[in-house]
């Protein structure tokens, strides 16, 4: 009896030990439900083949919900996630807080020097790379070539705002349900304010001067808002104040927008015949400028980072290396074609002749290279960031300002009132946060 018990016990222990030797490390990866990330989840067989000792649990959520969950977790040291997907706005702020693990020690085959300099710069704080870009984007103009031809106009590869206004007027055909231009109008720091901040950059406006004094009372902002409201009310789709990224993309896919300015990453969808019957009629151009040396295009990278609170940092880094390595791009290309490779992160991708042949490849890389987060505006500014200001207070402030500007677009407020209120709001928030003495 005793013997059997012991034998059994021994067997259990040795089994348990064997189990421990083979034990999998489970990592929890939180990500947005954008197409490129969803595609990655379909390619996990490759990862498991290479790393049988790591098991990945996915938390896939839409952007707003993901941001809410991840921020709550990281700020309270919850430690629920081992890999998180965050954007260019969060990385420098969280990195400075010490919430993220430095990725400087990724293996050599990661080839950090292959990352696009602008993207890499946005994810680096004091020489530490705090997140690895999964895909990067800028913004550009997409338009329907057939409508431009019909209207007898050409849109140059590097248009000016005046050109855009004229083109919008020429192509608008409300009777046919075609609107000259679709721009973001929905309130939010990542919605209308992302677009308006880049437009402001090209107009010579800025959020703050060198002393963090808000600048909404300056004539440049007035010019931005006047033109924006005029463009959309005259040539935009009715109800534009409720259109964000997705609404405008939907309208573009349906051919209802003659022109649209938005993220370069939508090029894949726009040129996909399964999603749009206008796929072969799409043209691309750089975001417009006003002749002041800055174009209205942003810079963003959805990136993978390891929270300091993770208890499986090595496995997390192994995963990040797999997901953002050059080999991953090749893997996607081999399974689903180059068009579906995550764009905007690596120089080598754009040097690849097969990728460079895609209709949007050159415009995307030119747009990304034209954005400079450390020098985003015509006049000098104390902040980093193109379509955002990389300070913790920005998201809240810009969301409130975005509401005022969407009210101006909806015709509820005059441009002057909206700007005056935005200025008052920004001054009070910046004073409360201690930027202005």
């Amino acid at each position, binding site marked *: 009896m005793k013997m059997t018990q012991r034998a059994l016990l021994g067997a259990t222990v040795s089994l348990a030990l064997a189990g421990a030797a083979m034990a999998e490390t489970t990592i929890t990866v939180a990500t947005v439900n954008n197409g490129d990330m969803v595609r990655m989840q379909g390619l996990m067989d490759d990862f498991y083949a290479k790393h049988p000792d790591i098991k990945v649990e996915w938390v896939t959520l839409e952007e707003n919900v993901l941001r809410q969950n991840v*921020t709550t977790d990281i700020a309270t040291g919850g430690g629920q996630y081992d890999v998180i997907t965050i954007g260019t706005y969060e990385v420098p702020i969280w990195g400075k*807080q010490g919430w993220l693990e430095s990725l400087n020690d990724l293996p050599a085959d990661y080839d950090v020097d292959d990352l696009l300099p602008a993207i890499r710069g946005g994810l680096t704080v004091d020489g530490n790379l705090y997140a690895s870009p999964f895909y990067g984007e800028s913004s550009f103009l997409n338009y329907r070539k057939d409508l431009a031809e019909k209207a007898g106009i050409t849109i140059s590869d590097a248009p000016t705002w005046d050109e855009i206004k004229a083109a919008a007027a020429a192509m608008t055909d409300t009777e046919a349900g075609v609107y000259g231009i679709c721009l973001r109008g929905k309130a939010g720091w990542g919605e209308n304010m992302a677009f308006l901040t880049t437009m402001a950059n090209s107009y010579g406006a800025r959020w703050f001067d060198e002393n963090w004094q808000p600048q909404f009372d300056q004539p440049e902002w007035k010019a931005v808002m006047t033109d924006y409201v005029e463009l959309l009310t005259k040539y935009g789709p*009715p109800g534009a104040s409720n259109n964000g990224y997705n609404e405008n993309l939907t309208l573009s896919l349906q051919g209802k927008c003659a022109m649209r300015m938005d993220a370069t990453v939508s090029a894949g969808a726009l040129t996909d015949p399964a999603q749009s019957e206008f796929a072969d009629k799409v043209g691309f151009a750089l975001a417009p400028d006003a002749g002041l040396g800055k174009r209205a295009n942003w810079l963003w990278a959805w990136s993978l980072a390891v929270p300091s609170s993770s208890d499986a940092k090595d496995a997390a880094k192994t995963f990040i290396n797999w997901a953002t390595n050059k080999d991953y791009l090749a893997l996607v290309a081999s399974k689903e074609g180059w068009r579906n490779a995550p764009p905007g992160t690596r120089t080598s991708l754009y040097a690849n002749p097969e990728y460079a042949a895609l209709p949007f490849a050159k415009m995307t890389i030119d747009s990304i290279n034209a954005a400079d987060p450390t020098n985003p505006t015509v006049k000098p500014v104390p902040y980093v960031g193109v379509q955002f200001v990389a300070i913790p207070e920005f*998201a809240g402030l810009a969301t409130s300002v975005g*509401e005022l500007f*969407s009210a101006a677009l909806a015709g*509820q*407020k005059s441009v002057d009132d909206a700007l005056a209120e935005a200025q008052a709001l920004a001054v009070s928030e910046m004073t409360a946060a201690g930027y202005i003495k």
Partner: protein
Amino acid sequence: MSTQSSRLAARVMVAPSVLLLFIWMVVPLAMTLYYSFRLYRLISPDRTGWVGFTNYLWFINAPEFWLAMGNTLALVGGVLAITVTLGILIALLIDQPVKGQGVLRILVIAPFFVMPPVAASILENLFMHPQNGLFAAVSMSFGAQPILFLQDYPMWSVIAIVSWEWLPFATLILLTSLQSLSSEQLEAAEMDGASALNRFRFIILPHMMRAITVVILIQTIFLLGIFGEIFTTTQGGPGSASTTLPYMIFKQAIAAKDIGRAAAGGIIAVILANIVAYFLMRGIGRHLDT
């Protein structure tokens, strides 16, 4: 019936609920009170400290505060008026012996099964959208311009969406109450020559009063806290046109990550809810125990 022992038994039986709910209420409430006097921003944890009433003052002095208070009450009042009125009518209608009653009732309560964020998203995009919505198609087939629901009538749109979600709840509770009404009483009244309207007014309505009160009170508490539907559809806009108090708190908690301000907003919301509840109890509370 209330003997000494049954009173004691009653206390013992109520105790678990009360105890659990007390803990559930008092812990978060105490923490919220604490944070409401603190500077606490999730993203800048190094800047903390006591700030007195600053967070409260910020809330009350925010330009949209009074508008948001008004909108909150409008949302509650609007949805209550719609769901209770329609709920009574629909309950009366589907209580009649009609063909396919079972299926019918499932259809009527089906909106309640749809998750609120989905309901809002579906109604916004497949129905109210000015270019792709069904309503726009209807307008255009009559040669009219599509109505810009979310831009021109944001508050009404939100009220409509929330009403659609909550109508089944009201209908179901009112229907259950209606079914407990004795038919003999109604038949007797009918034989006495009471008109349909009078039967409704003097027999059916008084009988349903307790259920109506319950619907009003429960819904009020839920409706006072609604923000998800607003975020999905209008984002509180355009401007602040459809901003409610919970949505203001939502913005502080989620966009600005200012937990101190959100906590102060929460305390203000509790005070508002108590005021509303007080007047509701004064107004209709007596129907509860009859």
